[in-house]
């Protein structure tokens, strides 16, 4: 299976799902389009492009040739971001960012304590000071007021 074939199938599936989900809204007519009209037209185009990408993708790179060597790092970074999204309003900006920076620097990248703590303070508390205190951009404080 080539990368283009995989991409083609994915695009077709996305188009089909969009058309299916658009059933919830009136389609309207060609002359008076309803809210489902544009999504259905664009989804149909997506299906068309997906089929074409699939059909013309026979000579593309094989999926097995795509290197995924960095997946562990990618998962760790993704996890950190997901934690940040989960924790921002629950734990507060400063605490959440401190955990994220400490985790990435000291566990994922195995940097020293001094650097880890210094950067954590600068990034979590420093950025809070610039945005929240100076620029008046409200950042969440969470349950602990942090």
């Amino acid at each position, binding site marked *: 299976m080539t990368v283009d074939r995989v991409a083609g199938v994915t695009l077709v599936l996305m188009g089909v799902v969009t058309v299916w989900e658009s059933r919830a809204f009136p389609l309207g007519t060609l*002359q*008076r389009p309803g809210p489902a*009209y544009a999504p259905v037209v664009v989804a149909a185009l997506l299906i068309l492009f997906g089929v074409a*990408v699939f059909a013309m993708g026979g000579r593309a790179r094989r999926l097995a040739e*795509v290197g995924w*060597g960095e997946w562990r790092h*990618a998962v760790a970074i993704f996890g950190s971001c997901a934690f940040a999204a989960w924790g921002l309003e629950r734990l507060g900006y400063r605490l959440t960012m401190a955990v994220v920076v400490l985790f990435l620097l000291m566990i994922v990248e195995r940097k020293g304590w001094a650097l880890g703590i210094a950067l954590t303070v600068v*990034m979590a508390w420093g950025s809070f000071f610039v945005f929240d205190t100076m620029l008046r951009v409200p950042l969440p404080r969470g349950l602990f007021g942090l």
Partner: protein
Amino acid sequence: MLETLQNLALGFQVALTPGVLWYGFIGCLVGTLVGVLPGVGPLAGISLLLPATYGLDATRALVMLAGIYYGAMYGGSTTSILMRIPGEAASVMTCIDGYAMARKGRAGPALTIAAVGSYVAGTVSVVALMFLAPPLADFALRFGPPEYFALLLLGLLVLAYMNTGSMLKGLAMAALGLLLGMIGIDQMSGYFRFAYGVTELGDGIGVVPVAVGLFGLAEILLTAGQKDPPAVIRPRLRDLLPSRQEWRDAHLPIWRGTGIGFLIGIIPGSAHVISTFVSYAIERKISKRPEEFGKGAVAGVAGPESANNAATSGAFVPMLALGVPGVPVAALLLAAMMVHGVTPGPLLIQQDPRLFWGFIASMYVGNVILLILNLPLVGLFVNLLRVPYPVLYPIVLVCSILGVYAVNSSVVDVWIMLGMGVVGYVLRKLDFETAPIVLGLVLAPMMELSLRQSLAMSAGSYAIFVTRPISVILLVIGLILVILALRPLISRTLDWRARLAVDT
């Protein structure tokens, strides 16, 4: 002509008074600093700092706000070049080659070219604004929904046609972006589409989380775990300035970007975003070395940056001449004018010439201040690349999350950024370009609305698109692009027939 120059002299008298000059400087400085913060673009910058101008007189307030606007525009390009984080949709194209230049140790030249390009575009377009504002504003008003739909469609086709990869893949990505742009409340009927109960999606998916996810986060996911992390770059003094070859590569794209940006910028709506995409696409198409695009082509920075800044001035045309805000930032400036007791519109020039021409002159002065301010800062910003990547990326990540959250104070935006980061990561692995997704996302609501408004105007007849001159011209250009894109396919078919033909 003579009258215009006399008026401009009056404007310079106002703009060069120490008080006004000082506020222009403060505006540029604060704008640059705010713009450098990832995710905080010109709109957020002006919104944040608007209350600070309440105590000033109208001229000083407007000059300061315009300075903030220019400064934030330039500051946004800094994060695009150094961190691959676009502060807004207009900076997306700068990310591609600007960041590639930075990774090749040419961050200084990229920033310098962005600064000079912005300066040239800003200054030239102010000249054009001065002489052409009334007739251009009149032209801009001839853009009704059918013309607007045709223009937006052309923008998508231009981008897909100029794609380095296949037009097909570009169009597929643009379609994906269009679908994303249809999430949220339908402006014509009020239906809540594809939101699945998430009320924050009512206004649709924001451009900033998508752009930061597709570009910034995807880059981190791809790069951080590489066996050989990107080398630490220690720029030397002579590396901060562009070489003679880089200047040569930049100067024509700067002029072309200026023209494209100004012309597209005058059209009301967010069409100015298209200008950077169109400029990038044209530069890539006419380049003698198109293979360099995406890998650090100077023209890929010079063109879009100039177009972006020229579009800024272009956007002021309908605002100053007619009192019609073409873009959200112009609307904010218009509101600022009203707060200070100034009534914008055609009578502004007669009623308050000192303010009008002072504002125009301050745009010249602001561009000079920005250049003087930013060239020395290039050396400072570039030092960021001395930080090893394993230490740099957590910083960038925090800035991205902060910037994305700060736009709407919404965690949903952070989740969207995260999702888009994964999408961008996978798409780059599969050799798909992600810029058309951003363009599709920006254009979708406007395209759909203008299509449906056009049909409402014509009682459901699609002939409206081919009976109005501007619309038909734009559609014909789009059709030509499609035919040009299909040409290789047609010629291959003809070759196949020729092989089968019998010699006579």
